[in-house]
């Protein structure tokens, strides 16, 4: 099973990289960009075949390592191979 995990900065947490990207887009002449937030995307291949157990595992990896709950949120979807 494959887990596609997205990690994003919480609302209210300043994202200077997102701001820099927004400025770069404006410099390229791409208008109408109101906000940019940068995050991380991680794919994890799991040997697990049970969706419930896979969820448990992914929750644990997100909480313990992949995301920092002080500043980040995470979301994921599972996809059967």
């Amino acid at each position: 099973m494959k887990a596609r995990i997205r990690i994003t900065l919480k609302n209210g947490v300043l994202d200077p990289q997102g701001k820099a990207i927004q400025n770069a887009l404006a410099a390229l002449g791409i208008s109408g960009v109101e906000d940019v937030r940068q995050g991380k995307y991680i794919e994890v291949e799991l040997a697990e075949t049970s969706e419930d157990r896979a969820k448990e595992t992914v929750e644990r990896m997100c909480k313990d390592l992949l995301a920092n709950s002080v500043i980040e949120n995470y979301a994921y979807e599972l996809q059967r191979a």
Partner: protein
Amino acid sequence: MLRASVVVFPGSNCDRDVKVAIERVTGFPVNMVWHGDASVPASDLIVLPGGFSYGDYLRCGAMAAHSPIMRDVIAKAKAGTPVLGICNGFQVLCESGLLPGALMRNASLKFICRDVTLRVDNDKTFFTKCYRKGQVVRLPIAHAEGNYFADEETLDRLEGDGRVVFRYCDEAGEATPQANPNGAQRNIAGICDAAGRVVGLMPHPERLFELALGGADGRRMIESALLSALEAA
């Protein structure tokens, strides 16, 4: 007698600097501990040094916080062993949950390497008792992720409990926005745990511990640790 241990992670690069600084100031040999070891030998204090542990992969300090040695560092810290985290070591302390908050990318997005002025806001911790509250000191910073962040509730709690140890300030000791190099919330450069035994800070005391280096304001942090350890003995 002072038994100090410095943890060495792959990518640490201030580990030897802090070893030399502690040995020169205290006269006692410092023990180096590899990150893959299961335990730190009995120590009066543990230092998590600056550098780029695990290449800053995922987030600064995130991988190091889960390395084998950190299980024992966390257990020892909870049992009362003082721990000092400098720069990357501060990031590791936050990632491991020993200190609250997180160190984010500098607001300027730039790596900043220069001296800053700091105000000592807590002179009661294990590592700061040889400073005076309100004293302005000069120490170097060298980081791209030193922008301290915590939610408002946590910041209020830290301030209320006197757990902000160092703040970026101007020459007069005022914590102004202009004196804040990295965007840190409330100009916070260093904090401590409730007992004042776990201290994390972004500036590098080991880089200015004797006048030959251009300044000696970091020396008092090591003297503080020695004095604290002798008092506890």
